[in-house]
């Protein structure tokens, strides 16, 4: 990586293979989340569909090829669970669901 601000517009050496460094999580999305995704590695085929669909880019690939949600970024929207076609993903409750939220939401 070239030295200097990695987010500058003049970084002409940026190729497709370079991954930008992610800034440290100074603020988390934990207040949004009352459910988090859990992977069942017996069923997961490591296709990457959940990785692609996350609107917060919270899902990352571990060294063994399976995926995990970064809880600092995950808002618990559940898109990855719906996207998983093998049924390896499920939602686990981490906090009390807000009482004003309708049951089917």
């Amino acid at each position, binding site marked *: 990586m070239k030295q200097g601000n990695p987010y500058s*517009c003049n970084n002409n050496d940026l190729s497709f293979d370079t991954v930008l460094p992610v800034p440290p999580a100074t603020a988390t999305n934990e207040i949004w989340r009352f459910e988090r995704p859990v992977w069942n590695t017996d069923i997961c085929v490591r296709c990457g569909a959940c990785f692609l669909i996350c609107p917060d880019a919270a899902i990352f690939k571990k060294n063994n090829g399976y995926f995990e949600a970064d809880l600092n970024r995950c808002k618990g*929207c*559940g898109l990855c669970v719906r996207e998983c076609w093998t049924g390896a993903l499920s939602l686990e409750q981490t906090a009390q669901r807000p009482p004003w939220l309708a049951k089917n939401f």
Partner: protein
Amino acid sequence: MDISSVYVSQLLPKAERFIPGQRSCKGCGKALATRIASKAISDMLVIHAGIYASTLPVCPSRTYDPYETESLLQHAYEAMHVQTASALQRAGAKLSAQPKPVIVINRHVFQHEYLALSSLFATEHHALYLCLDNEHYLNEFVARTGPLPLVVNEVRHPVSEADIRLLIHEKNSPPCSDDTFSYIATACPSFPFDLIEKVRKGLSCNGNAFILVLAPCPTGWIFPPRFTKQVGRAAVQTGYFPLYEKTQGKLQITQQLEKLFPLHQYLSLQRRFFTVPATIISQLQDAITHYYNDLVRQSQERF
């Protein structure tokens, strides 16, 4: 490695100029669309300040600061100028180098500030304009279909069939003439590879490119956030938001539909349409069928 063990999601480039942890809603369609589009964008991204740097608690497509457009234009001009100058310096540019900048902008801002933005289109430096549409204009449409509140003393014209046809026609096309852009396309993040392909085509074409991206909004459209992709797919499959591309005036439908699904499948997913009467919905269905058949006829024309 067995070829059948490679999934298409893994073949996409790892790099994405998308910084996680932004203040979008749960399941935000705009964030999803920008992230998928950023898979095809390697070099430069000019983002409207409203998406990533907003301090407002509400999505900036409903409310925005008009003074932000000035800074957007300034950034866009700088980006274009710098990109071109640096491109000239790099004599032997790599094939993966991006030829033009990308400007991501809300449709709300695009329509209101069109006069200011049209000065960008006329410059010699070309760009790709990604217009994220979460259908803010339908709020007024839905309100018009219902009865007037008792305390309001105004005349409200009921929605006519001509209004509906005009809405459907204007909704799915850019608010300018065909000559402004050499590449026009519609895309949806529910079809991610189609979106990536269109961004790549827009970057490689000569001249300005415009991509209208449908961004399903769970907050504004009132549906559970996990259905963002399903709502986008329903919008395309019912013909409500057909996916097409226009290169130099020649139209091609990228997502061919053998038959249009009933519009009810799309409307029933969102609570914002629950108060619309059935007569209006049937008129909407007719207008959508008419518009899609028109598109098919245009795509089959040869000149």
